[in-house]
């Protein structure tokens, strides 16, 4: 365990903790866009910057709190002039890139920015290149999409610009995107995402088409659980479990089935 200072408040964290967790532990917060608890920190959006001083040093540094390791005696400022200015510039640039995104507009407004200093891009979608979609896809083991190109031409892309063969239609990328930029349509038992059409499987409980066949097969293969485990959608599965628990614990029915 080690002690460090966040905005003058002392906090104790485990060795190896990133500053972001320490900051929240201390009761403060910083904005983030490319961060997600379930994934490795990426350090792309630069919104979470803070100013730090290592013990014994005279100079401070501006660093990203999502991946900077806490160290004993570190002094951290989350709202210094340097970081406030940096965050504002980042949002100024993002506002010009994605003028159509309400999420970016709100974030920019929160630092007093209503119009960008730069001419807004026309004909652009709301991708901020945070990489969350690609990262979560890789984390889940599919690696169906990628970040392609570099510099001004960088984009999220399906390989060879074709409907990605490794995509299973799980929709994780859609849900994790901070600006809701990835389109997904569920209709009549079919899901369309990344220009691919997936047949969906219906829940035997409520009849809702809730999972794609490909994703179900993948989960069966990777989890080792039988296919029957996936017959119910999450909600029905939870109701069934609650019912079972009620019967078992409250009514004392020892023969109640567990799923």
């Amino acid at each position, binding site marked *: 365990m080690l002690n460090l200072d966040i905005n003058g408040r002392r906090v104790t964290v485990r060795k190896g903790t990133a500053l972001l967790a320490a900051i929240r532990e201390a009761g403060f917060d910083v904005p983030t866009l490319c961060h997600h608890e379930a994934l490795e920190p990426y*350090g*792309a959006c630069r919104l979470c910057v803070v100013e730090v001083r290592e013990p014994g040093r005279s100079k401070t540094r501006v660093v990203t709190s999502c*991946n900077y390791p806490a160290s004993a005696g570190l002094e951290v400022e989350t709202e210094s002039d340097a970081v406030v200015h940096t965050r504002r*510039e*980042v949002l100024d640039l993002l506002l010009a890139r994605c003028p159509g995104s309400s999420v970016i507009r709100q974030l920019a407004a929160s630092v007093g920015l209503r119009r960008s200093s730069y*001419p807004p891009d026309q004909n652009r979608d709301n991708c901020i290149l945070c990489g969350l979609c690609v990262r979560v896809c890789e984390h889940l083991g599919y690696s169906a999409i990628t970040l392609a190109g570099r510099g001004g031409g960088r984009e999220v892309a399906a390989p060879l610009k074709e409907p990605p063969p490794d995509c299973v239609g799980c929709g994780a990328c859609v849900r994790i995107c901070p600006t809701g930029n990835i389109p997904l349509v569920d209709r009549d038992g079919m899901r369309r995402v990344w220009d691919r059409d997936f047949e969906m499987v219906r829940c035997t409980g409520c009849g809702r088409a809730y999972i794609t066949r490909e994703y179900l097969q993948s989960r069966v293969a990777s989890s080792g659980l039988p296919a029957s485990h996936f017959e119910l959608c999450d909600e029905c599965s939870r109701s069934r479990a609650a019912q079972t628990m009620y019967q078992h614990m409250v009514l004392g029915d020892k023969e109640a089935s567990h799923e």
Partner: protein
Amino acid sequence: MQAIRSDRELKKYREGLVAARDPKRKVVSVCTGTGCKAYKCDDLASALQAEVDRQGLSDKVEIVPTGCHGFCERGSLLVIYPDDIFYQKVPAERAAEIVEKTLAGGEILEDLLYEDPVTGKRIVKEGDIPFYKHQQQLLFGPGRRMRPGSIDDYIALGGYEALAKVLGEMQPDEVVDLIVASGLRGRGGGGFPTGVKWRTCRDAPGDPKYVICNADEGDPGAYMDRSLLEGNPHSVIEGMVIGAYAIGSSHGYIYVRNEYPLAVSNVHAALDQAREAGLVGDNIFGTDFCFDVRVSRGGGAFVCGESTALMASLEGYVGEPRAKYVHTVEHGLYDKPTNLNNVETWANVPLIVNKGVDWYTSIGTGDVSQSPWGGSKGTKIFSLVGKVKNTGLVEVPMGISLRQIIYDIGGGVLDDRAFKAVQTGGPSGGCLPESFLDKPVDFDELTRAGSMMGSGGMIVMDDRTCMVDVARYFVKFLLDESCGKCVPCREGNRRMLEILSRICEGRGVPSDLDLLERLGLAMKRGSLCALGQTAPNPVLSTLHHFRHEYEAHIEEHRCPAAVCRSLITYTINDACNGCTLCKRVCPHKAISGEKKKAHVIDQSKCDQCGVCIQSCKFDAIDVA
């Protein structure tokens, strides 16, 4: 070749090589570096060899194709030893004459000699030529006298003696201490004390450890590392083996830029020879120490010169840098302790081992007795290019002034035009005007002046160079090369380019300059890696030293250097005699006029492409 198993065997082998050489035999060293290949030096070398054979002189003359000599402006060139006769701008067709008249007959061909521009006299000996006289070619020198990657030539000149000494007489810790005491600092631009890096890597927990040679020389206009690697790969390999021993590593990589095929093949050949000689691979010099090297080609990305991006690329991924809050010496390649050094840095190592700390620290600036940060020791190789007379690679002791490099060695500005600025440090550096010419060149002085020494690129600019255009050029380069991961660099470079392009096209507004400064500061603070952090430097340094040029573009719609096409006009003057050449070559059909009568340019059609002015033989076209 048989494996060499001890210092004694190495000595014996070297003595054998030297004894087999006839000291009376003339050696003709012909530069065959990539720069000279463009001058068809390979044809010259083979023509010379053919002539020597044909005239029956092979026991009297040896033709040795070598790596780069550095005097690229004068290629193709050759030096005849032991007399030190220097011939420059030699066409292959003169081979027969050279062999017959000079090599056999002892006669000097005056027109092939270098002519001193100041005295007008022809100089015979290479050592008397100002370009070479003011240099100290400690690293570059040997490469000029050996076949690239010939291990015999390398050993004959004393190669691998340092390695033999290290493995035979020194403990790894002692080697680290030696490099710390020498004050050697990274030559790739960072200037970090090499010995300190080695020590941290040695102490870091983890196995295996890796040593890497960064040969991804990306600064445009800089080609020192390429020439070193092409011309004397063994010096780099020897350095790496010594370093690996000091650090405790058995695995090495040389990461070479994709655009350097000759360097790649020469390194491969040198490694094969070194393995055969038992100097790389298992049981080096007959000891327990094992170390081998893989060569990895880059895919073409400037950002891969950054160490974390390089390691990602080595692993087979895109070259995306990551935060360096945890250092690569502790968690680098494959998350293991990794020591990465530049080509020139590695080449310095055998030199330091052979000559010792006292000798090495007598060269350069400052005092490193307390700390290697206290000075800049040894030599540095620069690539002196741009609007300079003697374009080439120069190796000088640290502390020499910019003026000495540009004027004494470089011969001054091309066409004797007015000096405007010198750009150092590549896209991470800055432009310094005339008032800084007497600054000594080392790691710290130029940084204090607002630029940096960088990896060694030194670009001379004259009054016909537009500083706003230079800033725009660097920003465009960095935007193309940016990995695109972080917002400040990707979006920041894009917006900087937009603003600078508008200014160059005459559509700038006064508030643009403040915006550039504000954005530049955000990029310095907020970017993930050094590419983005230093991207504003060319813009901010030119704004600082040449603000009047920016203001002229914005307020007067004028480009003082007459470069920015939207702001210049081509006009035909009184010298026009109506030869009709410009009218015929103009791609936009913008010139009209009758034969023998003065021609005129239709400004509405003129694209300022420059074809007419390049074709006119009478200086009859002006640009303003």
